């Protein structure tokens, strides 16, 4: 009898728990609201939600930490959501959040892929929640067509790919063979960054691209691919261009195992280990999008609009979807970036668009 009832008990327990949880979120929806684009919320009533893929990625963890820092500066708390890189889980979380009180809700979301952005935007718009998205968005979807989708922030991958390409060319003395480790091939980030490398190669005619392979943004795959490419091209390899730091770190590991110390490595993202490697001199350069700032700024824009300090119609069209500034990190300036921190001044309502580097093309 015990044996048969145990799973049933577990199921009942779980469903009770979920009902209780659902009850909690429903219970907080008390305010009445009109869902007008520009809010008049009491700052204390604003709910801040930050959503990224997972906290096990240092960059995304630092993003949520930046969100916490902003939330603390306005006396609130950020709800930290992670969806493990699963699109369905992300949509489910968005639905759950929007099922609660949405009048003073601010969302700072990293959509899993381009295709995930539209359902998130539409759901938030219907519910009247203030939304800022980052990185991924289909080209034909514009915040200008929506009331509460305040802004989309992304980074010019062509520019960062070129920046590290140029840094790599300089590090190998403008002469020699390099290999490129691409990201997940069907992502915009991978495509743009590689296009940036190609621009850099066009300008640095002494640098030859020996081979390009994908390592899917993964440290482990980069290790295996680099080992293979090192046996294929041997001493001709003078530099490795990686579309993100995780792959650059995998490549560094492969170089160490092959006993090679004469190869320059560059990446993008400025993860802590890459910064340490740059400080040590084993890595040449990386590019920072400033994760903590990203985590804070999305909430800050939403907070400013929700509290009425900023009106949606006052936001310039170019600021509704923009490339944010990014920073090349080399051994010269790495010290400033070793401890990620946010500057509260960046999040003041007058300054939230200070880092606009250009409109989305």
């Amino acid at each position: 009898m015990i044996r048969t009832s145990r799973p049933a008990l577990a199921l009942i327990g779980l469903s009770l728990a979920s009902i209780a949880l659902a009850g909690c979120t429903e219970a907080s929806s008390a305010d009445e609201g009109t869902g007008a684009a520009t809010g008049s919320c009491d700052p204390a009533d604003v709910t801040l939600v930050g959503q990224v893929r997972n906290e096990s990625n240092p960059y995304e963890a630092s993003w949520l930490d930046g969100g916490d820092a902003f939330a603390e500066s306005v006396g609130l708390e950020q709800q930290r959501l992670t969806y493990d890189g699963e699109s369905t889980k992300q949509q489910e979380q968005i639905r759950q959040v929007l099922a609660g009180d949405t009048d003073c809700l601010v969302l700072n979301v990293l959509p899993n892929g381009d295709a995930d952005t539209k359902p998130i935007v539409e759901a938030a718009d219907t519910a009247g929640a203030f939304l800022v998205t980052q990185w991924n968005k289909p080209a034909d979807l514009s915040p200008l067509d929506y009331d509460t989708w305040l802004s989309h922030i992304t980074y010019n991958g062509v520019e960062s790919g070129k920046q590290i390409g140029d840094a790599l060319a300089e590090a190998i003395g403008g002469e020699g063979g390099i290999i490129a480790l691409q990201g997940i091939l069907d992502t915009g980030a991978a495509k743009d960054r590689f296009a940036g490398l190609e621009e850099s190669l066009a300008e640095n005619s002494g640098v030859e691209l020996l081979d390009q392979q994908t390592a899917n943004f993964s440290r482990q795959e980069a290790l295996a691919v680099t080992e293979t490419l090192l046996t294929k091209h041997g001493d001709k390899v003078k530099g490795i261009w990686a579309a993100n730091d995780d792959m650059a770190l995998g490549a560094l590991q492969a170089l160490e195992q092959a006993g090679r110390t004469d190869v320059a490595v560059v990446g993008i993202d400025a993860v802590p280990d890459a910064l340490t490697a740059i400080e040590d001199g084993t890595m040449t350069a990386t590019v920072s999008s400033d994760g903590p700032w990203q985590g804070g700024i999305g909430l800050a824009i939403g907070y400013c609009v929700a509290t009425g300090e900023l009106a949606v119609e006052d936001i310039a069209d170019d600021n509704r979807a923009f490339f944010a500034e990014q920073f090349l990190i080399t051994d010269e300036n790495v010290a400033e970036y070793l401890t990620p921190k946010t500057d509260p001044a960046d999040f003041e309502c007058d300054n939230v668009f200070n880092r606009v580097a250009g409109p989305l093309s």
Partner: protein
Amino acid sequence: MTVTSPAEVVAARPQPRRGVSFRDAGPPIALVVIVIVFSLLSPQFRTLGNFQNILDAASVLAVVTCGATFVLLMGSIDLSASGVMAASAIAVALLVENNRNGNDLGFLGIVIAIALGAALGCLSGVLLMALKVPSFMVTLGVSAIGLGIAILMFAGVQPNIADAALESWATDRLLGFTYLTWIAAVCVLVGWLIQRYTRLGRYAFAIGGAEEVLALSGVRVAPYKVAVFTLAGAFYGLGAVMVTSQLGAGLVQAGADFTFSSITAAVVGGTLLTGGRGGVLHSTVGVLLIVVLTNGLVQIGVSPYWQGGVQGLIVVVAVAAAALPLRHRNQVVK
């Protein structure tokens, strides 16, 4: 004698010698063919350095696949490798000398990490037997538990290892091969010995072949199932330690791709998903097939945009070829 009636065909089934040998020979032949083809196409492929590199790259997958094979032999499926490996990888990185805390347990840390893997495997087995839920659901759940443990221990800062001994696994060589390659070779040997000579291994086959018969003949199946999942967990744990040595850091994503690539390797090598057929050596051939394929496609310069598709196609063809001799057995495909 020369006229075979249907009844005799059925009676003859327990020892179809030619069928067995043909099926067993399929994947190794495919491996040899692929190696020859790549060697002809690429001078870099046939260098000694590249073969060392291939065995190096195959080492972790070989160990993980050893574990998965025992579960597959029972006709169960284990989707917990990625979660178990995540937990063990972070655990070992935090227990040996590292940049996060003052621990410096050395070899003991490695043993604890493998024990953690074994414990999670044991949990899969116990839940499977206690709840009577299909193994793929239970192990998927345990995988999530493992990931959860890993993320808790990870706490947002990546632990980098500084333990010289563990780092040397990936860098130092004995007779031209890294320690990782030797560890994998020993694991395959141990796995094969367990499968061949211990009651655990023989019962794993028997459970996969006909669990009811085994139970009816008075064998208590449950402890053996739990033991097999525990063994698999230990292999995943060791695999995670090896990944950590390779990457120099404990990653939550350490095992991300291994769940499916280990099952793929096992099946490509001739270990059936339905259980009772195949074994550690079959699966190891499957591992080599997949790793050689990945390496060779890069060496001959297939565009990365084509590689995924080409690799998938070759795997499907290889599995279809290996399964060809089974068709006449009226095997139900599901």
